């Protein structure tokens, strides 16, 4: 089975685009299933179910979604394996731009839309930088020139990736992406595999439920912003 990790900002069109590609994979006789990771709420599992795509839904709730992903992906992949799937796709939304769910030797796909703004690619970190494939969606509502400019901005951040434009509504571009997913390497067992990028350090009082603001309440891994002396009353920096 091939494990494919797909990630991108909320509402960038991940699910629509995946439904189209899964349709194409089905036409080629390949069976795909999905696990959708989100933070607070998601109804995307219903969209997959409506198209007869086997799906799991995981909501991180009050945990960091990246940590939630890494502690669950192995069990989810095993579930996919038990169903005899050819491809198992993990779809992550709601990650902060500090992280990526990409795993070494498993194909990593980043989804970003043309409306995100020309500077967005430079703000995205490993989610974009370490992807093998970047899919740019919503090209049907911006001009040709902006599609070209946006694609160039993506290339500047990640020159190695295959960059594709795809329309999640009509499915235009799905053949190319589908062919790439179908050619992905088999992943094998995840135990002992490595993430491409380490998780953020997050061990402080706020992780444990602290909600009050103030120096007295901060413990553990805390970093202070640099503020010029003259503008600080009291002038004390941590």
């Amino acid at each position, binding site marked *: 089975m091939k494990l494919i990790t797909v990630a991108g900002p909320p509402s960038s069109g991940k699910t629509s685009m995946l439904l189209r590609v899964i349709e194409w994979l089905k*036409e080629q006789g390949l069976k795909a299933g999905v696990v959708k990771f989100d933070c607070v709420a998601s109804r995307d599992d219903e969209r997959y179910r409506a198209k007869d795509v086997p799906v799991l839904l995981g909501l991180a709730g009050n945990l960091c979604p990246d940590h939630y992903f890494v502690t669950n992906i192995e069990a989810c992949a095993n579930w996919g394996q038990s169903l005899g799937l050819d491809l198992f796709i993990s779809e992550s939304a709601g990650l902060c731009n500090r992280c990526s769910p990409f795993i070494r030797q498993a194909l990593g796909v980043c989804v970003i839309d*043309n*409306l995100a*703004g*020309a500077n967005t690619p430079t703000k995205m970190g490993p989610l974009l930088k370490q992807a093998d494939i970047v899919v740019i969606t919503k*090209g*049907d*509502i*911006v*001009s*040709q*020139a*902006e599609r*070209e*400019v946006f*694609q*160039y901005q993506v290339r*500047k951040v990640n020159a190695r990736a295959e*960059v*594709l*434009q795809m329309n999640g509504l*009509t*499915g*235009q*571009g799905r*053949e*190319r992406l589908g062919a790439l997913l179908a050619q992905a390497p088999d992943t094998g067992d995840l135990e002992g595999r490595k993430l491409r990028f380490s998780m953020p350090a997050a061990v402080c009082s706020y992780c444990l439920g602290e909600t009050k603001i103030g120096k007295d309440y901060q413990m553990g891994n805390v970093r202070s912003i640099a503020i010029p002396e003259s503008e600080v009353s009291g002038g004390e920096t941590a």
Partner: protein
Amino acid sequence: MTELNDVITSVTLLGGRSKSGEPEEVNLRLVPGDLVAVVGPTGSGKSRLLADIEYIAQRDTPSGRQILINDDTPDPELRFSWGRRLIAQLSQNMNFVMDATVAEFITMHAECRGDGNLDEAYAEKLIHEVIAQANRLTGEPIMPDSPLTALSGGQSRALMIADTAILSDSPIVLIDEIENAGIDRRQALDVLVQNQKIVLMATHDPILALLAHSRIVLKGGGIAGVLQGDAEEAALLQELQRTDAALMAIREKLRRGERLSGSSLGSGSCPA
């Protein structure tokens, strides 16, 4: 990056099967400067055709069509990288969304063509060229310092066409229903043709369809045929253009607040 515009000298479409399995008798070779209309009701197979061209299909899509580049099957590597950049698309519902002025934006677009190395004088020249071209297509002049997002529909369309003609690397331009509002459509097509694009134009407008050198007829997810214009159609085009000009003249009079008379139509008089 290879300039596709310079490398691709012809694109040939070889028929496959319609959705119902009917064989398509099509062998259409397109070269830069060709203008082809695509006609047929919604759902008749436009997206299928588009997908086949972009995928540079080699009888490996549901349609069974084949696309040749420069009279040959492209090698797999090239097929992959070219397909992505083969077609520039222009449609009614495309907008500018970037927060930039027209001049800044043209510079940005030119930079991505030259991979970031853009001589300042050359950038100036391009800005001037694209804006001048756009302004020949629209009645409302575009200024270099206009914000992109403040352009009217006609101005946006004009700028998109001028930019695609001059700066886009894609050898094929697909135009979806170009509207009549605020832009000279005939000139718009001329600009693309003169800039050596292969223009595919999906349209229901008889004047536009007859302006094309040939016409792909879509039916039921397949290509029912490719029609070439003849003398009769050329004569009809003339007639339609006369009527169109007369109608324009009436509209203009209406705008100026004048009275209209029944004899205005068919006289073919252009507005002074």
